[in-house]
């Protein structure tokens, strides 16, 4: 699945992803405000399959899973970043959102067409010369993501 790149800087925090003000409501209302502090029209502009590319420490802050859930609700294909905050990374795996570490994001441009390959760990860009090889995710984590998150993964395993 391909989409467009939404480029962000360092330290994108969980209050931007899931603003506290909307935490008492459902995910639909919350997702409508996802990332609006940085990019006011994000939730309107983003389309299924679009990819977030960001700098260091993506998801810093709270342990709220809604930070991941909002991106899933908006059908973001995944997040590619120079690094992730620890709790966010674990939450993303547990809810089934692909999160991949890039050694550099220099070739990625905002609005550029791209597609994210989880199994081969590549971010394909419109200019093939700039394709970004990503750090492969450990196989067991990939399996959890491909199952749609930890709960689905456990159900599948328990059913066998």
């Amino acid at each position, binding site marked *: 699945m391909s989409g467009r790149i939404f480029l962000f800087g360092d*330290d994108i*925090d*969980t*209050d*931007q992803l899931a*603003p*506290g*003000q909307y*935490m*008492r*409501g459902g995910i639909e209302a919350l997702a409508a405000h996802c990332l*609006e*502090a*940085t990019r006011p029209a994000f939730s309107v502009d983003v389309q299924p399959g679009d990819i977030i590319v960001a700098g*260091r*420490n993506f998801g*810093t*802050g*709270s*342990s*709220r*899973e809604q930070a*991941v859930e909002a991106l899933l609700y908006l059908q973001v294909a995944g997040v590619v970043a120079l*690094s992730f*905050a*620890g*709790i966010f*990374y*674990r*939450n993303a795996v*547990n*809810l089934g959102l692909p999160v991949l570490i890039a050694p550099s994001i220099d070739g990625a441009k905002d609005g550029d067409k791209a597609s994210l390959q989880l199994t081969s760990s590549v971010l394909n860009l419109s200019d093939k010369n700039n394709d970004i090889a990503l750090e492969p995710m450990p196989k067991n984590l990939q399996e959890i993501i491909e199952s749609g*998150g*930890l*709960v689905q993964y*456990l*159900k599948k395993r328990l059913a066998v």
Partner: protein
Amino acid sequence: MQQTLAQKIIARAAGLKYVTPGEVVTANVDLAMIHDSGGPRRVAPILRDLGVGLWNKDKVFLVSDHFVPGDTEEASAILALTRDWARETGVRFLDGQGICHVVLPESGQLQPGMFAVGGDSHSPTGGAMGAFMFGIGATEMAGVLATGEIWVKVPETILIEWTGRLCDGLMAKDIMLALCGKLGMDGGKYQAVEYTGDAIKSLSMQERMTLANMTAELGGQTGLIAPDGVTTDFLRSVGGDIPNISGLYSDTQAPVLEHYLFDATSLAPQVAAPHSPANAMPASDAENTSIDVAYVGACTGAKYEDLKAAARILKGRRVSDGVELLVAPSSKRDQDRAAEDGIMAIFEAAGAKVLPNACGICAGYGTQRLAADVTCISSTARNFKGRMGDVTSQVWLGSPLTVAAAAVVGHIIDPREMLL
């Protein structure tokens, strides 16, 4: 084999003699803390879906704090759900007593050497007690509640040593803001951060909690302070069991990832500019910044000792015209103590408005939030854009002393100029 405190605690919890950094182990959880936001409303549906109950209700602590006082229909519905679940499951429940990271240690149940998880990013606060405690999301928490286990990649230890002694007018918050400035919000690399040195050892338990708490802002998985006499004295004071703390320290030759050395004696009061704790600078460098709201609140900024510190500045003074001073004591116990000691009376005489014992404006979940274009100085942990209010609001962080001083003069100032 020489091991760090983090390794020792994980090895014990995993039933192993020793563990190596980088190794992934499954460990038994000694205590799991959840609150009204990430707790029952999120974990109960998962447990129902999986068709399982709690592994041990006596090891689960539930606290209501994020949606207290329930000032909207939705918030009060979440609190009702939380209370119902507490009744159904029989877990330990601290309802409306204050913020989880403060009321858990106050219960005396969090013990040195424990391997504990919390459904909140500031869970490293437990490291002040010498417990390996870290924050997790609701799905992982559901797994812990069902099985009593969690996997953990054994962290490296980043040793942060502060020598010397803090000068009068300086607090743990100043140390932490300085660290955020020096190391950045990912300086902790999701590893174990251990605080050591004479300046740390001489901190009281509540000051240690401030430090360990904000390991979250440093990006560490957990923040540890080796237990000592301060720890056992604190546990005695809250009526907890007095643990055997022998062996609960990092061996002197245990390899660490990084070892930072800082001098506390030369540290000046710090503030962090909007919108990151890493924007730290000496308060004197921001002295022209005028403020509209001063907030003494949150787990990391309104405990008894934080209130006492702010009252040192506020005593016999009034809040500056046009400035609103808000105080949300971290726990009912701390507020009661502060009332007995005349501290709350000082706040009231200065013109402060007292808010409920809850996460309040720091979490930004309620109706009380900062209005557009307001500049606030706050003793809380995070000043992310839009967290405490409108996206145009500007939040500076500082110690309770620095917040109180700014409230009195109407602008940021080095609080040492106002100590009596």
